Structure formats: C-alpha cells, structure tokens
C-alpha cells in the first residue's frame, strides 16, 4: 500500500488519481502506524510553508516523517518542507535536506508556471529521463542547490528541481501533472 500524507496543504486527489492510473491503490492518512507500515509514502502539498509546518508539528506528523525508513517522495511544497528553512513565513522546516527555500525575485514573472526542462538530471528518480524532457512546475519559492540536488532547473536562477538523500526523494515539479514524463518519474519511485 502507498500512503499519501494527509494534512492541511494537499492536492492529494491528483496524486491519488495518478497512482490509480499506474495501477496502485493508495491510502490518504495522518495515522502514525499506517504511515510507518506503508510500503512507500508520498508527501504532496500546495499552500503556505509556515502554516503547513505548524500543522505538521501540532499533530506530531513532523517526527513521524523524519522517522520513516521506507522510500518517501515529497512533491512541490512537500519538497520545500523537507528542506532546512523556508523564507515563506521564515520557518524552520524538517531539515531532511540541507537546502534553503528562497523566494523568486518579483521583478520577473512569478509564479514559475508551466513546463520546463532540466539543466542536469542524475539519480534514481530520473532513470530514462533526459535533460530536454519537460515537466510541470508552479511555485513562487525554490530550493537552492546542494550536493543533495539530483535535478537542476533554471528559471531566473538555477534551483533544485529534485533532491535525494537516503530514503528521501523530492521533486519541485508535479510528476502527477506532467503527462508521460511525470508518469515515468513516478514509476521510478514506485519501482524502488
């Protein structure tokens, strides 16, 4: 069973629909035991970082996520919450990845909205994916680069399109909304 973390910042049904198209049953839950017992866990999210972080903390979901041993995939806000700190609401995040989340300068067109290719891809999630493949992004904040960056995208500045560390994976883009390319990336995660 694939668990999707239930909290106040979700586009959980998009992720659920995408997994269903791939033939996977999902469980949307915030129950500690159900999350621990899941084969894999997906941590989606759209919304505001500091509100989402305080929601996770109040319910102890932050500790549950940190202690997960199975493959975990953060998506969009999920990626940002797995980083060290976010400028959105100036909030300390889960600190799984050492990256910091910064705001795009509003002198340019923001949000970064639409299909964008990569500057660089490596690692498990990107098996069979090339730098000229496009995936769908929509975000106002971005995670900077570190040695945990496995996908680099360039919009205004180069930033982390994907991160990977131990059993934790994350994408800034929405694989569940990125047609055939997104499906491949989701499958790479599900095949882990």
């Amino acid at each position, binding site marked *: 069973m694939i668990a999707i973390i239930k909290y106040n910042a979700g586009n959980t*049904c998009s992720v659920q629909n995408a997994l269903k198209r791939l033939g996977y049953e999902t469980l949307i839950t915030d129950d500690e035991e159900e999350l621990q017992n899941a084969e894999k866990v997906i941590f989606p999210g759209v919304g505001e970082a500091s509100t989402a972080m305080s929601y996770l903390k109040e319910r102890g979901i932050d500790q549950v996520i940190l202690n997960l041993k199975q493959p975990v995939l953060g998506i969009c806000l999920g990626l940002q919450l797995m980083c060290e700190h976010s400028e959105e609401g100036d909030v300390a995040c889960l600190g799984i990845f050492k990256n910091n989340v910064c705001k795009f300068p509003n002198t340019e*067109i923001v949000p970064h909205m639409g299909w964008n290719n990569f500057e660089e891809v490596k690692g498990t999630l990107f098996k069979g994916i090339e730098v000229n493949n496009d995936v769908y992004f929509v975000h106002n904040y971005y995670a900077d680069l570190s040695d945990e960056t496995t996908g680099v995208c360039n919009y205004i500045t180069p930033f982390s399109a994907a991160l990977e560390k131990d059993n934790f994976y994350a994408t800034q883009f929405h694989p569940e909304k990125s*047609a055939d390319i997104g499906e491949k990336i989701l499958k790479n995660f599900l095949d882990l």
Partner: protein
Amino acid sequence: MLKKRIIPCLDIQNGRTVKGVNFVGIRDAGDPIDLAKRYVLEGADELVFLDITATIENRDTLVSLVERIAREIDIPFTVGGGINSVEDVSRIITAGADKVSVNSSAVRRPELIREIADEFGSQCVTVAIDTQKSKEGWKVFTHGGRKETKLMTIDWAKKAEELGAGEILLTSMNNDGTKEGFALEITEKVSDRVNLPVIASGGAGFEKDFEILFKTTKATAGLAASIFHNNEIHIQDLKKYLKTKQIPVRCR
C-alpha cells in the same frame, strides 16, 4: 527554458462542450472528456474548462465532470464559471482541478481573490478578464461580456496581482471569434505591467497568430477554442511550427 503554453479552452454547458462566436450563438462541440483526452495526446500544455451556464442546478453536474476530468487527465487544468465564494473553490479544487478562474465575482467583490489565495495559494487563482476597446481605452466587461464596468483593464489586472492572483487570462472581445489574431496592444500592456503569467485569448485563427503573440508580447500562454475543436489547427503541428520560429514550446 520555460516553455510557452498552448491551452485549448472548452466552454461547458450542461456537461457538454459548446462554442459561441463573439460571445453569442452557441452550438454543441462534443463530449468534454473525449476532447480533453485528444488535446492531451496532441500535446496541449494545460486545459481550461469554463462553465458558461453556471447556475446552481448545474453545480453538481460540473463538480462530477471535474472529478471525471481529474481521473482521466494527467496535465493541469483550470475550471471557471460561476465561482462566487471560497466554498465554490473548495468544491472544484477538492474534485481535482488545479486552478479556478474567477471573473464577474472578483469584479463585484475583489477581496474574493485574496480569500482564495489565502486558502489555496495564489497559484490556484486565475483572474479572467474580458476586455473590449472603447473610446476611453480597454475596459473590463463582466457577465460573459454582456455588462460593461467602470474598470480599466490595466488597472484591474494590477489590482488582481496585488490581491494575490497567480495568473491573468485576458480575453479580447473585439478579437474573439474573428480569426484576425490576438489583441496584441492590450496583451502587451497587461503583460508588461504585471509580473504574473498572462494567457492571451481571443482571435487566434492561424499558426502565425501564436508566433506573433509570443514574439511581440510577454504573454506566457495562448488560448483558443474553436480552431482546435474544428481541427483547423492541430496542436502538434502548431508546436512544430513555433519551434521552427525559435519559440520555446514543449513537444511530446
């Protein structure tokens, strides 16, 4: 590089796709799900569904249509028409839409934009502006283009940005249905003045119209309906064409 988006728009009435010309004269254009799937295969970058009836009786029909679309479509889509409150947005987003578009209701009560942005994030809110050129300049119209307001288009776009809009969908009523090309003047002005993605709509008849749009304005997307529905322009061919003109587009 961020790609320019090509967006087919499906006008929905009682769960069917319809197309009008110059905001009047409606005729049936098929099943929305069939069309939507065809567009995804052709390489559409996003889809917009506008419920042009948007009566309370039709809400449940629309919500169940949105659920069906979300199950079958793996690209982002926006739903608009008759969205008046955060509760309306919640039903549409919960059903699986990625964004909602607000028009008349936001003109009537601009705070709605902020309320939606606060609740669901600004990336969720597309502000649709129907505009027509008058003696005083480009003005905002509501109620499917039937009602003239006092608002000037550029001012309203700026205001929408301040209130937390994530995107502007700008439709020129002068150009809509004419196949004479997009309204470049107002699209350029709006896309210059706001730092939001702007979708240009109304008037596309030929591949070249999209090329001119992307070469002369900062619009990040071009939207059209009947030329796609009637197979006058195939999205895949359009993208191939744009690529030869050095316009960044996503090709499947």
